[in-house]
């Protein structure tokens, strides 16, 4: 049985009608995972026995006639999202064996709907960065070219057929960039859509829980399950908003839309990537979409402000990893020494760097200069995106400037941060955005970003499926 290319809805039908049992499906999936993981380093943990137990339970639920919208669907969960059965590594050597006492809302909802968690996917140092290069487990290798990082391990799992859905966080753009680098679709939901309870966020303002899959419709299947009010996340849209629009109701027809095209932004990526975007634009136009050129300012300013706020929040969110309650406690003579040493045992170089910067940014005399200014820019960025989305129904943006990080090169942190140029500003705007395959540079895929108005997730998934080339190409490393 080949998982590759099969839509989620079809697979759910097959499992629900007992054409294949969830158990068989997961057994096969686990075999594939073991096979591929060694080469690509996608998983920090593969669920094994637990996944088979989950599958058995799903078969039983189907037996008694339950209707499960995600029956048997294998899901990979990023290692910064809590699942109270498997170790949640958080991207720290200190958390290798940490089994959290609770499960994230989104994971809980996927499992209720019949999905099966098959493993936790690799993340950077404390989940930071838009690739996995700073991971204490080493980077996840790009399935298309072993010389490059995958960007996100969940996207690598999807494109190699190890799972049908990947539940991933997206702060500055990790999910979207990973989707781009692996050639899959990845949706970052808008503010207030999906509960973030159980996500170890480095930045509480910008982190969201999203979904990566082969198609927009696959994403929609998951989104319908995971979105909705949750008393445990105060940022979620109020109950009445959900009642009005349903869970993921569309607000427009996907066939006849105006797509805004900020020409200046498309001048920024490297030439080969620019070319991919140019061709995609022509295709979209030929496909009946009206493309209108718009001005979108503030991208570089937004990126800087994004990092100021993000670093400040990280320094505070990571304060708890001090060796007292969380993180590995070091031998020490006094409290100060305990903190200093324990934090070194728990946080890697990237996490420490961000905490130090964040501490500086919030410090006396710096708050006004950096943090307060960044908040002002954040406000302007939100306004700018809202203004633009009055001129068009969807906004088109690059996802990436360049190919993913090369694994044989020493990474420069500022350059890595710079990779978020097109994704972080969208995170600031709080709008939903999807990264969809747009073409290739050599064998490396390149994704394009569509940004919608608040609550337009369903529309984005529909447009994604109309615009993405029918992707039957899989990297040859994948299992058969």
């Amino acid at each position, binding site marked *: 049985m080949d998982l590759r290319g099969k839509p989620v809805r079809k697979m759910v039908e097959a499992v629900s009608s007992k054409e294949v049992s969830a158990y068989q499906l997961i057994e096969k999936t686990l075999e594939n995972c073991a096979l591929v993981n060694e080469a690509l380093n996608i998983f920090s943990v593969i669920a094994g026995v637990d996944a088979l137990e989950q599958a058995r339970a799903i078969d039983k639920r189907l037996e008694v006639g339950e209707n499960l919208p995600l029956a048997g669907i294998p899901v990979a969960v990023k290692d*910064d*999202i*809590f699942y109270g059965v498997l170790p949640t590594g*958080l991207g720290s050597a200190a958390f290798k064996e940490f089994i*959290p*006492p*609770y499960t*994230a809302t989104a994971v809980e909802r996927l499992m209720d709907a019949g999905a099966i968690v098959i493993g936790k996917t690799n993340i950077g140092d404390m989940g930071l960065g838009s690739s996995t290069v700073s991971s204490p487990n080493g980077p996840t290798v790009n399935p298309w070219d072993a010389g490059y990082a995958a960007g996100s391990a969940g996207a690598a799992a999807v494109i190699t057929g190890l799972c049908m859905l990947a539940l991933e966080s997206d702060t500055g753009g990790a999910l979207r960039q990973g989707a781009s680098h692996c050639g899959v679709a990845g949706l970052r939901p808008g503010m207030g859509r999906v509960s*973030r*309870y*159980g*996500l*170890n*966020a480095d*930045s*509480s*303002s910008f982190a969201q829980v999203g979904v990566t899959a082969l198609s927009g419709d696959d994403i929609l299947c998951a989104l319908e399950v995971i979105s909705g009010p949750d*008393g*445990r*996340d*105060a*940022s979620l849209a109020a109950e009445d908003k959900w009642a009005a629009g349903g869970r993921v109701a569309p607000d427009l027809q996907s066939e006849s839309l105006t797509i805004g095209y900020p020409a200046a932004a498309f001048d920024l990526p490297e030439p080969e990537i620019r070319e991919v975007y140019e061709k995609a634009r022509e295709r979209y136009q030929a496909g009946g979409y009206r493309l209108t050129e718009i001005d979108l300012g503030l991208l570089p300013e937004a990126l800087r402000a994004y990092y100021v706020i993000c670093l*400040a*929040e990280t*320094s*505070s*969110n*990571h*304060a*708890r*990893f*001090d060796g*007292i*309650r*969380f993180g590995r406690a070091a031998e020490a003579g006094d*409290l100060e020494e305990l*903190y200093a040493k324990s934090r070194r045992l728990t946080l890697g170089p990237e996490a420490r760097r961000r905490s130090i910067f964040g*501490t500086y940014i*919030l*410090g*006396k005399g710096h*708050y006004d200069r950096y*943090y307060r200014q960044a908040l002002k820019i954040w406000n302007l960025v939100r306004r700018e995106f809202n203004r633009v989305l009055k001129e068009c129904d969807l906004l088109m943006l690059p996802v990436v400037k360049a190919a993913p990080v090369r694994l044989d090169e020493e990474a420069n942190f500022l350059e890595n941060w710079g990779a978020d140029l097109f994704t972080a500003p969208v995170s600031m705007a709080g709008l939903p955005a999807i990264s969809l395959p747009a073409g290739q540079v050599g064998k490396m895929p390149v994704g394009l970003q569509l940004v919608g108005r608040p609550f337009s997730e369903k529309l984005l998934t529909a447009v994604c499926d109309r615009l993405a080339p029918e992707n039957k190409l899989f990297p040859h490393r994948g299992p058969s």
Partner: protein
Amino acid sequence: MEYEVIIGLEVHVELHTESKLFCSCPNRFVQEPNINTCPVCLGFPGAMPQMNEEAVEQALKASLALNCEIALTSYFDRKNYFYPDMPKGYQISQYFVPIGSRGSLLIEDDLGSEKQVRIGRVHMEEDAGKLVHSISGEGSMVDYNRAGVPLVEIVTEPNLRSPGESRRYLEQLKSILQYAGVSDCKMEEGSLRCDANISLRPAGTETFGSKTELKNMNSFKAVEKSLEYEIDRQKKILDSGQEVISQTLRWEEDRQETIMMRGKLEAHDYRCFTDPELAPIKLGAEKVEEARAALPEMADAKAARYGRDYGLPPYDAGVLTASRALADYFEACLAIYDNPKVVSNWVMGELTACLNEEGQEIETCAFGPEKMAELLKMIEEQVISGKIAKEVLVKSFRGGKTPRQVVEEEGLLQISDHGELEAVVEKVLAENPDSVEKYRAGATKVIGFLVGQVMKETKGKANPQLVNELLVKKIDG
């Protein structure tokens, strides 16, 4: 030299709520450590705070009761610092915009005239856990039951001028917050905690001297004592031409002195910023007005009403309104037995004595207001005498039975039967001929002694009025 004393108080009060400030763990004291905890109040990564509306309402009430201006939009901010009792590495507090500001409270100054104490701010925050240090030196443990309990911090402007004023401010604050139903304000149990800032300056000058911060006072008296001690200490330093060092001092109750806790008051850099995981607290103007209107009558207004409507003397009114629990008891009793002065006498006298003796609280004691009313009714209906009633109260208080049950079970019914009493009266008269002579000679006061003898014979059960009548009738023959 003559000095002017400048004192400012920072008071932390635990709010009375069902659950903690940001999770549904019960806000209740338990002995066993770390029982009332969950991922949120233990600061687990990914466990986000959820705002407790009830705590906001309580903080609003506190602010209104202290005559504060109310911020219709306020925020929760993070105060970042490391300490083992703070599981997240930051405390969620209100730094930039407190819910209440520019409030005031009236006290008597040292000369007995009215003084307005200015309150700078009232803000909400979460409590920290408690460190437990092992005596045997195995290290320290943390109990997070208290972590996340809702607090308000009430900060005065530096406009208290003496330890006495400070104590009266605290007493008044406690009364107001208790009346508002915001907190039980028990300093001994830590539901009210007070730090004091104190400095001296030469009388008539304007610039503040360097201040010290006093901590670890466990009672209002300790606050007063520690301030007195500190004034004296600072005076001596200044008189000797030296400078007071800005530092944090710890009041040692056993030694009745302050000792240095931390050197040099560091201006701590808490790197505050608004918590991105919590929405702003928005209060509608209407909601604020509703809360203002719903504030209960405070002690002073109540005492005035007791005088006006019930004709109680100021002393009684003052005592009965000293705590809301006492006033509530009095009013509940009055609702059943409408005789204010009698109820007042019994509540202030016998009941209070009983409470003190048994070390109980009025709100939890077994002798509730309905029992008191029943007891007083029985006196009025001459079922028992006042003297017996005192005994009944003690028994009912201790054993939990109703006064009527006690009276019935112990056979304490008042004797109002003529025949029964006449026999006793005759016996007493026969045994005390001198008294009878004296009475006849005009010393009518001895009748009291004779009544007493009859009461003694009947173990207090005789109806004293009836005995009096019978005695007079017999002697006058």
